[in-house]
């Protein structure tokens, strides 16, 4: 059972991601964020519930929809927002952008723009933990679209063969860009996708942060116990488009609204907290205000921070001098 502090912390983190992403969407609309920008709104429970069961020293890796993962890893919102606006103070010095953010210090290994490339990379992070025998694990997030890439299965095979400490998480938000799972996947029960590699899979309600946390606890124990990899399919939903330029023709407004009304992860947890008597509306509103301030501050910072110096163009290509 989660304690009051844990519940409030998960609430705070989910609200932080939601408000951060809303603000990022606004800055994109104002032309302050360029290129691709993939928002995590609706999926907050997945990363927040998972992160609750991880330890410092574990490795996290994901694809391009990565802002939420960064915040859940405890990375400063200012550094993330400033990366989105392409400023020197951004976590990648403005050289990565929305899809390419990393923090070795926080065990966050990106931030990868090629669909599913993070899956073998994540298996490799797990390999490194096993090689060093340091007791840590790797958590590899990818989407339902990525789940159809061949390298995912190459990774499942090696991870199980070598009993690597990796949790594979399919964030099934039901649409790969505009293609629904049913239109792209012969086996649409994605938690079964590891079966031919003997990778056990579980399907989890990814809109319920406590369900995610429960699955995370089980998965972490399994993987940390040296049993090899585990696959979690998180059934979730993104409220926004795939990226900022999404025609929204592939699903109905009603479908999205119904999800928001019935399954919103933040509203769901809020209800649980109030019903359990851990906090009242006013206390939660105080958290909301605190988060709004953090996000507003990050946006101001990201707009005021200077762009990278032109001299940075040629730095960080190689580490060595040859």
């Amino acid at each position, binding site marked *: 059972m989660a304690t009051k502090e844990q519940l409030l912390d998960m609430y705070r983190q989910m609200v932080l991601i939601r408000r951060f992403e809303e603000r990022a969407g606004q800055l994109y609309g104002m032309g302050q964020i360029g290129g691709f920008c993939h928002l995590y709104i609706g999926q907050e429970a997945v990363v927040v519930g998972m992160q609750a069961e991880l330890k410092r020293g574990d490795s996290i890796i994901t694809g391009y929809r990565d802002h939420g993962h960064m915040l859940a890893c405890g990375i400063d919102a200012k550094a993330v927002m400033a990366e989105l606006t392409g400023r020197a103070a951004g976590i990648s010095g403005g050289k990565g952008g929305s899809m390419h953010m990393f923090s070795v210090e926080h065990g966050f290994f990106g931030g990868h723009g090629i669909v599913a490339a993070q899956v073998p990379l994540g*298996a490799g992070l797990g390999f490194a933990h096993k090689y060093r025998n340091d007791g840590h694990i790797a958590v590899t997030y990818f989407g339902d679209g990525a789940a159809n890439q061949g390298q995912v299965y190459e990774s499942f095979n090696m991870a199980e063969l070598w009993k690597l400490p990796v949790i594979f998480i399919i964030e099934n938000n039901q649409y790969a860009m505009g293609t629904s799972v049913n239109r792209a996947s012969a086996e649409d029960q994605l938690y079964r996708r590891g079966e031919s590699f003997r990778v056990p899979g579980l399907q989890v309600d990814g809109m319920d942060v406590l369900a995610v946390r429960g699955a995370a606890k089980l998965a972490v124990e399994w993987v940390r116990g040296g049993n090899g990899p585990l696959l979690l399919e998180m059934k979730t939903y993104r409220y926004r488009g795939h990226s900022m330029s999404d025609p929204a023709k592939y699903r109905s407004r009603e479908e999205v609204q119904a999800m928001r009304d019935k399954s919103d992860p933040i509203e769901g947890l809020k209800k649980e907290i109030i019903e359990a008597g851990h906090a009242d509306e006013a206390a939660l509103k105080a958290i909301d205000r605190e988060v709004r301030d953090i996000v507003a501050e990050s946006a101001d910072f990201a707009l005021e921070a200077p762009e990278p110096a032109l001299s940075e163009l040629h730095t960080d290509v190689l*580490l060595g001098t040859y």
Partner: protein
Amino acid sequence: MPQILLPAMSPTMEEGTLAKWLVAVGDVVKPGDVIAEIETDKATMELEADDGGTVTALLVAAGTEGVKVGTPIITIAGEDEAQAPAPTPAPTRQPAPVPAPAQTAQAEPVEARAVTAPELATGPTRRQTVREALRDAMAEEMRADQTVFVMGEEVAEYQGAYKVTQGLLDEFGGGRVIDTPITEYGFAGLGAGAAMGGLKPIVEFMTFNFAMQAIDHIINSAAKTLYMSGGQMRCPIVFRGPNGAASRVGAQHSQNYGPWYASVPGLIVIAPYSADDAKGLLKAAIRSPDPVVFLENELLYGQSFDVPEGDHVVPIGKARIVREGTDVTLVSYSIGVGVALAAAETLAADGISAEVVDLRTLRPLDRATVLASLKKTNRMVVVEEGWPTCSIASEIIAIAMTEGFDDLDAPVLRVTNADVPLPYAANLEKAALVKADDVVTAARSVCYR
């Protein structure tokens, strides 16, 4: 009396060691019986009898090295041919005589084999093949650094598809010498992830042709991460394996990826010729904090060179003058250096003094050495075992044009493979591959002779 000739047991096999006879004179063999163990440059293999009969003579003694492909090694009389057994020859370390070359279509690289680099290292050296030098480089670095490991197809129990990792499993165990499934994209990505996680992987591709399945991880994951992370995240990994044309293996197994990888910022690309450079540069590559593509050449694996003893490390990014000259500069890398050296030898007989520059590293390219040699000779020919278009030769020509224009007394020429997928037919393959004769012609032409 049917004789069995030593067969070619791999595409590049020219000779083998008759490791062991499993039959003796007078034995009756059935079709399919194993009669001998033959050791090639790649593996020890069993030789089977095609037809049954009685062994009447062993023509080559067990333990004989350097038996040329096509040499008669045993006679087996059919059931109706009763023959008196012939005596078994005494063991010898001398190469067996060659009745006739079985492979008539060896291309220029073979000719180049006779030529060794004249630049000999000072201090004690020992004669080693490129294959042995590469293995020693890995073994030494693995002894020195526990985070270094090697993974790839057949690197462990099989001892390396080309024997480059021979013996490593025994010394370092299965935790550090890791056989992978046939899954290039997957294990290249897994290796890159392990590098990001703090290890120093050596990922062997059985050949770089197969690395095309993995090129996304080499470029998008390994090469770009440092930059995209603003200098935070390293990916110290070596991708290595044979590159370029081997012998008669057709278009899909015969391609030089040097120009592909050399065009990518964030990668180090190395393509050595000699065993001493192979060793010294592989050690440097493993120590490098950056991702390295290390391009070997199957036809060079068996060639021997003098390799300095001790901790021999060659700096990345430095070309080497392998032959000094004054009239024309021949620039090359990898197996092309042998072609250039053979051409230089021919040119010397004609009174043309050619300087041969081995680039050794393709990225970062040692422009200074190329330009200094051009300044000295004022004429340049680039020799490349690869396609001409968008090649390393193209790059050298661009450098000469933009930075050495005033030193040029003639246009820079390039001598490369033909601009076609590599054909299988012996004569066509030979015609397609870069040749010393063409280098000689080009060099004469830029010298106006």
